[in-house]
């Protein structure tokens, strides 16, 4: 059930709301996965290329621009998914027209995402600072053009939401790895060739498999994360716009005749 407008939700409410919104927008989630997958694979390739011995700086730069260019598709997918996740009944969120993102909103999301990424990369040497900036990447995509104060209102709630999502990441990773291993075991008995080779390729010690697994886990959890962030932005808007007070006053007015009677 959706949170009533005007109510300030907690971190668990945001997560519940995010999950519920995702179940209403599977079409947009699928479209997001298709749009975000190339950038995720390119990022994995970039990291593997950089860690490989003899990795030169010039191809690293070219590959970084490649990741960023594909990342523009991810931002498009995020904006489209954000629109689908913020659609409320009776507006159907699952139509393909949800992919027709307004150019202004997409432009704002691209600029803001690039700015956040630039700051995160420049603070890359600290390791923790880029991680702390990650929520902003989702926030600027689900609410392009929104004031930063509105986006970051309730920092404790935002922190709680991300702490709740961390074990979720672990659970998804274990399940996904288990599923891949099961499918590989089933296939190795059917397919010709060396079964040990498939087992070696799908072992966690293989850096390519590990990176692809982490990328897939992030893709699985991202729609729920975006749904929760959409709910957070809507709650923050209600608070800054005074809608929560309006709802509260309406409730008080509704109670008043009962008391008088």
């Amino acid at each position: 059930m959706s949170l009533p407008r005007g109510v300030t939700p907690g971190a668990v409410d945001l997560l519940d709301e995010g999950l519920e919104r995702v179940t209403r927008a599977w079409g947009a989630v699928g479209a997001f996965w298709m749009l975000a997958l190339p950038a995720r694979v390119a990022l994995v390739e970039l990291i593997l290329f950089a860690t490989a011995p003899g990795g030169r700086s010039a191809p690293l730069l070219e590959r970084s621009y490649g990741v960023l260019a594909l990342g523009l598709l991810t931002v498009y997918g995020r904006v489209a998914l954000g629109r689908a996740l913020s659609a409320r009944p009776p507006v159907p969120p699952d139509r393909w027209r949800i992919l027709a993102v307004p150019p202004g909103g997409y432009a704002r999301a691209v600029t803001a995402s690039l700015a956040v990424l630039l700051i995160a990369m420049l603070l890359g040497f600290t390791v923790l600072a880029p991680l702390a900036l990650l929520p902003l990447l989702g926030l600027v995509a689900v609410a392009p053009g929104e004031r930063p104060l509105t986006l970051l209102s309730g920092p404790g709630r935002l922190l709680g939401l991300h702490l709740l999502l961390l074990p979720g990441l672990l659970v998804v990773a274990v399940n996904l790895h288990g599923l891949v291993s099961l499918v590989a075991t089933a296939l190795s008995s059917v397919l010709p060739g060396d079964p040990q080779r498939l087992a070696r390729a799908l072992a966690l010690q293989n850096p390519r498999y590990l990176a692809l697994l982490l990328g897939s886990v992030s893709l699985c959890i991202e729609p729920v994360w975006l749904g929760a962030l959409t709910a957070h932005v809507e709650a923050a808007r209600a608070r800054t716009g005074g809608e929560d007070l309006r709802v509260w006053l309406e409730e008080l007015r509704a109670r008043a005749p009962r008391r008088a009677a």
Partner: protein
Amino acid sequence: MRCRRVVCQECALTWDGVNHCRACLELRRGQTRGGRSWLRWVGWAALTSVLFLATGWAMAWTVGLWARRG
């Protein structure tokens, strides 16, 4: 009036001391908005291009840094 159409006094809209019909005034407003929006898009493209170039460079630097650490 730009369109030279006869409009009654009540329907005429005055802008900068000149009478206009509603259609002419909407056209003028659209032209002004169009010019502004064109400029805005050029500004956005310039800003985003600079950000794109800088972010790509920073990404290569950071990934290289992490790879050397690892």
